[in-house]
């Protein structure tokens, strides 16, 4: 199969849909499902049936449209239109179905309308999420119809592995799991390490509180991740891949399972992909709910069937990973960026974003913010724009206090630093990290000591217990924070807390421990007076 064959195939799939002038797209991602989307989908399907199909409309379950707080979301889209070109309805209930179907092709239903020209949609730039909320995640044909697997076919048919590596390197793409390690460098390292057996692992063990980017990508556009993995496997010379997904994401697992099955049947995975000599098998492994298994060495131990504990690095997975073989491990969003990079070229990608942080980043907006949900913006977007324009600011007339990025490994950014561009390096200078993309917004009522205690409790309970600083240190830091939060802490407690932060940060075995003090250190940096105010006199 070459690109022309694929284009023909895609044309055929699109032609089949051409009879329907409109699509009623119902978000069937986890968030909208939990607010009642399945009933809406059923109701719309029934309403369509009653209308005897004269509307030329098709009801279809799609992935995340982003504005989760307004769910269930339904978009009435002219065939082939994107989200901006659709009429979007918010907070849809099953009883609205008839009205919505009646409005198709006519005047929009104003009472449910959610404007798509508002900053939440207009200020985004969707690359990772380009198909999200548009295609049916369970349909491989749907993915192919919007240009899916073209990058894989192009890589296999027209590019050498070295050329793929060159494009990824040129793109400047950095790992989206939090560390920001250059993807091209990682890929070419694994490619260069000799070995008959190599592995590609997709880290989908998203566990930060308030983060749901990877879940949304997997639920909305699973084929895209598979395509990225397959391209990576081709580039580094791997024949086997693992998708490590946490078991708490049943819908993502279900859609991935379907996607793998359908991709294999269509010849995009498995033996002799796209009629070339390249073969690549993907298997799903479920995580049993340990946050530390998001750490790459712990994740690999878990795949091997061992206790999910990290081990010292080096050797890095690139050299000695899964079962001692060279292994490429990237996060969901990183793989989701690969297909467009191959399709449009590394230079195209490198033109987006800032000097050292290329492309876009998906963020999960949560906390006290008007528009909670999923957004994708170019790197370098000002934090203030994300929170005030896209996020719609703080509801209820309250004042903004801080935004927490990077989950339990990150830190809090106060109002005074809201004008920084969001990229890996700027966030680092503020004592926080990009992380995987969770953003928790807090208003003036937030208690920062409590925030630090919350994240420390998370790290304490998620510590695997292997190394002493993390196992015993997080425990002690939590006890000290608890004591301070309850007004029983002393100045000496605070000093001991700061000392433990330093030791745990410098001496822990893996990233979980090394970054566990970050929420404390950053709240101490910007909100020290809140700690001091709680200290008891003695």
């Amino acid at each position: 199969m070459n690109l022309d064959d694929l284009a023909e195939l895609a044309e055929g799939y699109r032609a089949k849909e051409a009879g329907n002038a409109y699509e009623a797209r119902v978000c069937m991602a986890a968030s909208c499902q939990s607010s009642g989307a399945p009933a809406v989908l059923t109701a719309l399907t029934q309403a369509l049936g009653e209308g005897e199909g004269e509307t030329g409309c098709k009801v279809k379950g799609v992935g995340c449209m982003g504005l989760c707080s307004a769910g269930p979301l339904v978009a009435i889209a002219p065939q082939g239109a994107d989200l901006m070109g659709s009429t979007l309805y918010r907070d849809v209930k099953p009883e609205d179905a008839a009205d919505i179907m009646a409005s198709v092709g006519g005047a929009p239903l104003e009472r449910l309308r959610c404007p798509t020209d508002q900053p939440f949609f207009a200020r985004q730039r969707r690359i990772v999420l380009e198909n999200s909320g548009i295609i049916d995640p369970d349909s491989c044909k749907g993915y192919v119809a919007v240009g899916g697997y073209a990058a894989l076919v192009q890589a296999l048919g027209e590019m050498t592995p070295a050329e793929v590596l060159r494009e990824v390197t040129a793109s400047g793409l950095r790992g989206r799991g939090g560390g920001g390690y250059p993807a091209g460098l990682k890929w070419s390292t694994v490619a260069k390490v000799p070995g008959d057996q190599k592995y590609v692992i997709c880290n989908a063990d998203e566990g930060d509180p308030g983060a749901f980017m990877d879940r949304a990508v997997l639920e909305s556009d699973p084929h895209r991740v598979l395509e990225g993995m397959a391209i990576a496997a081709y580039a580094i010379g791997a024949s086997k891949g693992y998708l490590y997904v946490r078991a708490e994401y049943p819908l993502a697992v279900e859609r991935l399972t379907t996607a793998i099955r359908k991709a294999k049947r269509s010849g995009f995975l498995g033996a002799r992909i796209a009629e070339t000599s390249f073969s690549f098998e993907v298997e799903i492994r479920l995580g049993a709910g340990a946050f530390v298994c998001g750490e790459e060495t712990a994740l690999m131990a878990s795949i091997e069937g061992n206790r999910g504990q990290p081990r010292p690095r080096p050797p890095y997975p690139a050299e000695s990973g899964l079962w001692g073989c060279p292994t490429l491990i990237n996060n969901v969003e990183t793989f989701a960026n690969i297909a467009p990079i191959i399709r449009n070229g590394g230079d195209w990608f490198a033109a987006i974003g800032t000097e050292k942080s290329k492309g876009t980043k998906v963020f999960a907006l949560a906390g006290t913010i008007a528009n909670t949900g999923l957004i994708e913006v170019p790197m370098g977007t000002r934090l203030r724009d994300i929170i005030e324009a896209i996020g719609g600011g703080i509801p209820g007339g309250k004042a903004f206090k801080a935004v927490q990025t990077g989950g339990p490994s990150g830190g809090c950014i106060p109002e005074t630093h809201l004008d920084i561009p969001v990229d890996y390096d700027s966030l680092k200078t503020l004592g926080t990290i990009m992380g995987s993309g969770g953003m928790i917004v807090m208003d003036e009522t937030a208690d920062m000591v409590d925030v630090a205690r919350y994240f420390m409790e998370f790290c304490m309970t998620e510590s695997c217990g292997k190394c002493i600083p993390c196992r015993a240190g997080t425990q002690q830091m939590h006890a000290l924070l608890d004591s301070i939060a309850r007004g029983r802490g002393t100045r000496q407690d605070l000093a001991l807390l700061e000392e433990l932060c330093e030791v745990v940060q410098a001496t822990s075995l893996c990233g979980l421990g090394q970054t566990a003090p970050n929420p404390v250190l950053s709240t101490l940096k910007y909100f020290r007076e809140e700690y001091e105010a709680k200290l008891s006199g003695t």
Partner: protein
Amino acid sequence: MNDTHLSHDPLTPLPNPPPPGGREPDTAGATRIRVATAWLDGCSGCHMSFLDMDERLVDLAQQLDIVYSPLVDAKVLPDQVDVGILEGAISSEDDLRHAQEFRKHCKLLISLGDCAVNGNVPAMRNPFKLEAVLDHAFRETATTQPQIPTVGVPPLFRQVRPVHACVAVDVFVPGCPPPADAIFYVLTELIEGRTPDPSKVTRFGA
């Protein structure tokens, strides 16, 4: 009282207080260092170890005055003491008051022995409920007149703490008991005006 707080700044080692020794002798002869000792919740073994310095005690007596101690007759802690030595953990209100008085009146305070330094055997009751411990000791295992004493005994804390968890301590001499040599080393260093490093001569459990 908070069970967990420390009473001195743990970040920086305590600024070494001016060692009481090494002073100018006055005209009437060398000024002797005034030493007070007490045992809190301990077995008195550390004081026995103190006595184990044997004939060296005679030499020491030239340079220090024991102004208050279970080993001497004085019953009142003087206002000004150079070196306070505490044996035993803080288990009761009495222990705490004693420790606080020592801190108040002593220029330099020494935790002598594991009980004072880390709670040791007295602290082994900490994982249990106080009531259960008392019950076990005075009722379940008593062969005659099983009853929990309440009169004339100080109320016990729920948790036994080392001395430094309650008052600031300047020198720690671990050991169960610390060997006489270790105690001698610490005292002679202080007399010489140096800050002793007891970890050279003793350790936990030594």
